[in-house]
């Protein structure tokens, strides 16, 4: 089927789009999560300074999303550099899809963590019992990014 020694050049194009999108979108989500909850912490901290350190948890959870993007970016970069000639364009598209899966999932999770974190830390300042509920909702939001990571890693194993 065609010349099996020549590697289709567009495979690298799409593969590296995957690498870039994994990192860029994950960082977008991470930054949105950190800033949105950070604003909540700053507003809340004026009146309840003792709760500030407990309220930093949404920011930490948002930071993890950037790490997911970096992990997938590094793994995909290694895979794209070693695309084999047999199914080069198929691999290129698979790595594009892997990057998009991880990046967009982390973006969505970051949006969710930011908005829930902002509302949560403000509500936590008024009512102690909310803390556990806020943590539970944040964990569900974080799991979304994990699902994206898992599917990305499955996709990165294509040959």
């Amino acid at each position, binding site marked *: 089927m065609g010349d099996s020694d020549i590697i289709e050049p567009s495979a690298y194009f799409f593969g590296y789009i995957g690498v870039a999108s994994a990192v860029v979108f994950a960082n977008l989500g991470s930054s949105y999560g950190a800033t949105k909850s950070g604003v909540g912490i700053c507003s809340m901290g004026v009146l309840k300074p003792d709760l500030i350190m407990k309220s930093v948890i949404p920011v930490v959870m948002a930071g993890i999303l950037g790490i997911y993007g970096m992990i997938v970016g590094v793994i995909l970069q290694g895979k794209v550099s070693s695309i084999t000639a047999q199914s080069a364009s198929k691999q290129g598209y698979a790595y594009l899809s892997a990057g998009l899966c991880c990046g*967009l999932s982390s973006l969505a999770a970051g949006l969710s963590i930011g908005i829930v974190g902002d509302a949560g830390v403000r509500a936590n300042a008024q009512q102690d019992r909310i803390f556990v509920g806020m943590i539970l909702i944040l964990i569900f939001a974080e799991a*979304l990014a994990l699902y*994206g990571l898992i*599917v990305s890693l499955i996709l990165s194993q294509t040959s």
Partner: protein
Amino acid sequence: MNWGNPYNWGAADWQQATWGERFMFIDPYFWSYFGVGLALATSIIGASWGIFVTGVSLLGSTVKAPRIRSKNLISVIFCEAVAIYGVIMAIIMIGKIQTIESYPDGQQDECYTTALFNGYSLFWTGVSVGLSNLICGIAVGVTGSGCAIADAQTPETFVKILVVEIFGSALGLFGVIVGIIQCSGATFLKNCTS
């Protein structure tokens, strides 16, 4: 997968081809993998949209009515289920994509056309599943938000609004069912015919 020159087009064919004819030469594997990515990414966007819409109402209402906190987490779990539908569909679709290694002599055109069918079918499966889950996530989120606020005011309304939420959650299931049927015909075969 080097398709070579399916349909054996010469230079003259390429010169006078319409955009619709050129469209066929977009790689089938691109369509398949992009469908996988769409299915997963849009499902997770829907789930996250639902989680934050319901989360803020839940947290806000709990300030004055702490008793509603644990019960209303079920709305968040319904939204998470939407993300899981997306993951399931993505894994099913990935399982259907395999490398075509060879084809019987003289059947390159049929092989390529079958591959195009598979690619298009997986792409549109991704669109149907992804968009259904996106909409389902938003629906469950908005309903869950109303549920939390109503429950804070009047405890009897919780179960009644939960029934509405279950109907909303069924939208994602419809998407998954249609998606599974849609991609059932898409099989990339190693030798193109067996």
